[in-house]
């Protein structure tokens, strides 16, 4: 059966199945990916790297498209709050 890994989303540990994308971890944590220019919370829309709504900071690097990034054990994900 599938292996489980842990990523930290805004400091909260989130268990994900290996191979999951980072956007899915943000959704599971119930955290928006980013705040828009008028401070609306946004989550992934297109799921395929086109819309840029899923941008978040991953391992200290800003503006990562989290829908095209696979979760690694111990990954640190931070979103706008």
């Amino acid at each position, binding site marked *: 059966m599938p292996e489980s890994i842990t990523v930290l989303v805004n400091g909260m540990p989130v268990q994900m199945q290996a*191979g999951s*994308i980072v*956007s899915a971890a943000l959704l599971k944590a119930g955290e928006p990916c980013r705040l828009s*220019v008028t401070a609306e919370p946004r989550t992934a*829309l*297109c*799921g395929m*790297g086109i819309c840029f*709504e899923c941008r978040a900071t991953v391992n200290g690097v800003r503006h990562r498209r989290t829908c095209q990034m696979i979760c690694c054990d111990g*990954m640190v994900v931070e979103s706008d709050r």
Partner: protein
Amino acid sequence: MKHADVIVVGAGPAGIAAATAAARHGRSVLLVDDNPGAGGQIWRGGIENFDKAGEKRDDPAKTKALKGLVSSGATLLSGFRVFDAPGPSELRAIGETSEGTEVVTLRYDRLILATGARERFLPFPGWTLPGVFGAGGLQALVKGGFAVEGKRVVVAGSGPLLLAVAAHLHEYKASIACIAEQATTSQLAPFASSLLSYPSKVWQGISYRATLYKTPYRTGSWPISAMPNEATGLLKSVQLTNGNKTWQEPCDMLACGFHLVPNTELASLLNCKLQVGFVAVDEQQRTSVENVYCAGEPTGIAGLDAALIQGEIAGLVSAGQSASHLHSRNLAERRFGARLEAAFRLRPELRLLPALETIVCRCEDVTYEDLAARSSWTDAKLQTRCGMGPCQGRICGPATQTLFGWTPKSVRPPLFPVPVSAFCVHDSQQTVSEEIA
């Protein structure tokens, strides 16, 4: 710098078929794709899918295509996105890993564009709420490990993708409240009967219907607003209409997309001729630019079978082989695409969905009211920043085309936001600054 006889951009079905065909005929082939793995959207990988017995489930067509690709000897470069075409027969691509970014120059003798399509999104009140996803978007997120078990989902918009998405979500134990298809039954009827001349598509349709036999499929219906729970801010319900009657559908999620639009940005940057929004190709998939071919959805939205055949034709022709044995099948698939377009034509009421305060450009939060006063796409960009955010108009461009009849003009590098340093450095292994240009 990497050089290949044939470079293929996009590792969906068309790109895989193209790369495989060219490599089998002795060409060195590099297949570049921005996703973590090959397969494109329709054959998207993700978390392993286990059935009830704990066995891994695979799509046999995808497995066969990927095996063919591996045995052909073509090289796959995943996680790299083409952002520029700085010189003749030259592309620049950027790879993003959790450690940083890497820029590489790619040189080719022949180039095959298999850049696929994206969903068309149309703005309506509430479409920016968390809990509202693209239809294919939600499917991709679920494949990527987002659990929807026990969630109530409304699937809405237009196109055959809605059925595929609903069937897929049902498989992952979501409860599908209904599928709202904006096209009318009379619009869809000729299309449904034309499916009979395409056996593989009929079987696919039947298996969706079997999965969804209890799910209401409401034709001539569309969403008019998504309502939040005032306390939590989360999606609470979707308001749907059939033009006469309006009703609320309580749900946890809305999966909504209005058919597909082609990804033609790279083709435009290379000066390939477009015809009514699609890349113009001849029967050998040649574009107007010498040694540049295009296959699959950018040449016309026609689905998986068309993508596979056109990809194979482009691969064969780029390797100096004849592909005449495939032309009649390609023509048949193109006719299927034309029927698809007619069946899922958008109704004019969809242009009236946004309220004055509804955001149209999600990157820059530009509202319908801001845009209604503008005269053209260029005017809107200059005055409101519509289309000037990170997606570069990929989402709001097609929306404003539907709403106002505007045509986005002039594609310029970078095709996607990249760090400024991507233009300053030569091919690099080193990490560069992460700020978006």
